[in-house]
């Protein structure tokens, strides 16, 4: 399941947000934003995470970094149990895991200069101060494609793409080994998107970075990811190598998602699978397989039993009762001990 190359191993991670009502703040329901998610990321590997809005992608990314405290589960980063770290130990751990945000506007403090924004981490961890810090920040700016003379400018003096580069420089300042890119290019123009993605790819080679690349645009994800995980309503329904997933989608939800990706070939006939209905609310997810109310393959068992994880080889796993029948019985691990 997990080899020695693992940098990050997440097991049965859950994040439930309680909904409180009344004078005594009684918990009346739980929003199951992340429900029993397990995956791993190797050193230097990029895992793409895709899914519709509201499926829990962002919550998952932040729960891994403990920017949102997970409700249950395990996170092992380079062998260290992240969830057991407290106070200063957790802050030291943050040197190794960073995040790039979606919104290049709200993610930069409007009252700080670029020097302070990018150099804050250097100051916080006592890595560099004064002149030395300024030199480091200038190097970082040059590295992400910004002129070093911009150090004393404020965020509002930059365009969206430039701001996102500042965000990348900030994430790189601590020389981390893992970065969560949370919809890092979704807010940018298509032409700028390509530049920032290429920058992220270059940096991955140069610094040996691992990414969790969260996005909803499948073609972008395919370009940058080694493997892709598909999320639906708080659960990962399918994980596979990038090309494997596109060539051989097994879960009906993945198939529907992929059929929505435009192909730049007018002669190619494609069947567009249009899902009916809306994403159900994660407050009270459908019984059994969460996808069953919208699934074209739905059978009786789907609404009764949550599907186990089926191993389709080459690290390709999925969770579907119906498709699992194409594989031998022993390939499927029942849901109780599920860990893809």
């Amino acid at each position: 399941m997990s080899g020695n190359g693992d940098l990050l191993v997440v097991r049965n991670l859950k994040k439930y947000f309680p909904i409180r009502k009344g004078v005594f703040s009684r918990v009346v329901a739980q929003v199951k934003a992340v429900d029993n998610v397990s995956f791993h990321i190797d050193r230097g590997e990029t895992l793409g995470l895709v899914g519709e809005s509201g499926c829990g992608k962002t919550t998952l990314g932040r729960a891994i970094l403990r920017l949102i405290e997970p409700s249950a589960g395990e996170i092992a980063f380079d062998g260290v149990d992240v969830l057991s770290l407290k106070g200063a130990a957790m802050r030291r751990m943050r040197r190794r895991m960073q995040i790039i945000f979606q919104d290049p506007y709200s993610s930069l403090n409007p009252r700080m200069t670029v020097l302070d924004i990018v150099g804050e981490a250097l100051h916080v961890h006592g890595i560099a101060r004064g002149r030395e810090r300024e030199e480091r920040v200038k190097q970082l700016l040059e590295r992400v494609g910004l002129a070093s003379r911009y150090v004393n400018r404020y965020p509002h003096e930059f365009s969206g793409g430039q701001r996102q580069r500042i965000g990348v420089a900030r994430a790189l300042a601590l020389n981390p080994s893992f970065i969560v890119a949370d919809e890092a290019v979704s807010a940018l123009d298509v032409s700028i998107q390509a530049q920032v993605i290429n920058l992220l790819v270059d940096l991955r080679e140069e610094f040996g970075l691992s990414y969790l690349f969260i996005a909803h645009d499948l073609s972008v994800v395919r370009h940058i990811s080694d493997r892709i995980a598909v999320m639906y309503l708080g659960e990962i329904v399918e994980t596979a190598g990038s090309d494997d997933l596109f060539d051989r989608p097994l879960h009906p939800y993945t198939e529907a998602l992929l059929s929505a990706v435009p192909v730049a070939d007018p002669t190619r006939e494609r069947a567009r699978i249009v899902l009916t209905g809306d994403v159900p609310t994660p407050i009270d997810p459908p019984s059994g397989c969460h996808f069953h109310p919208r699934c074209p393959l739905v059978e009786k068992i789907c609404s009764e039993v949550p599907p186990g994880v089926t191993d389709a080889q080459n690290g390709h796993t999925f969770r579907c009762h119906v498709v699992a029948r194409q594989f031998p019985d022993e390939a499927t691990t029942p849901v109780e001990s599920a860990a893809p």
Partner: protein
Amino acid sequence: MSDRRWKTLRRNKTAMVGAVIIGMFVVVAVFAGVIGRYDPEARQDEFRAEPSAAHWMGTDKNGFDMWSRMVHGARASLMAAVCAVAFALFIGVPLGLIAGYRGGWIDGTIMRVVDVMLAFPSVLLAVAVAALFERTSLFTVILAVGVVMVPTFIRQVRAAVLQVKPLEYVTAARALGASDRRILFRTVLPNCIAPIVVLATLSTGVAILDAAGLSFLGLGPEATVPEWGVMLKDGFSLVRQNLYWIWLPPGLAIALTVLGFNLLGDGLRDAFDPRQI
């Protein structure tokens, strides 16, 4: 404050009028000893003398020179107001920051105390605080006015923090490994400065009024101390007589400074408004 906001403020005529009024009174207060000409607490001439070349604003019932009392009164009133606001800032800003940032039971406790304090009419609360002291003075006035303003400050600062807290740059600071204290003072507070500055400016006007009000009610310094509220109290019984030089100047001075602070405060609020171009 950025250049753009400075320009918005400079172009705002009413705000500039307010700033000029305040500036005038500040100059008068600072150089009170030079401008005042006489000792404000020493008998100079006969009682209730009309304005003349020697006594520009006449003399009061004790024969003290009104002009020098007015000038020294500016010093006392402005100082009392500024000190009261400083006190409210000193107590209110940290508590508001903590309540907004930490939330939970800390927030609940602080805000319930604030609710209780706000449930009393402010004058009543100020009178109660002033009544705690055997002898009232300018110092007790400052304390009473300051205490009354604290709950409003806590509320406003907390509201500002709640607006800033969910923004991603705060999450980013946390992701970098910054401590809570650093995040509060380096990230959250600088982005809450605008509403705090506006509140402090408007509150200074209110504080002048409240301080004068307490003195007027007899809960301020002794009757000989030059302070506008005290002077107004002296002149109050004389309004029906033709002794305008005793009651009119302190009343006008109070009205004018309060107006000045309100105009400037409103102007600052406009300048800080993010919707301004």
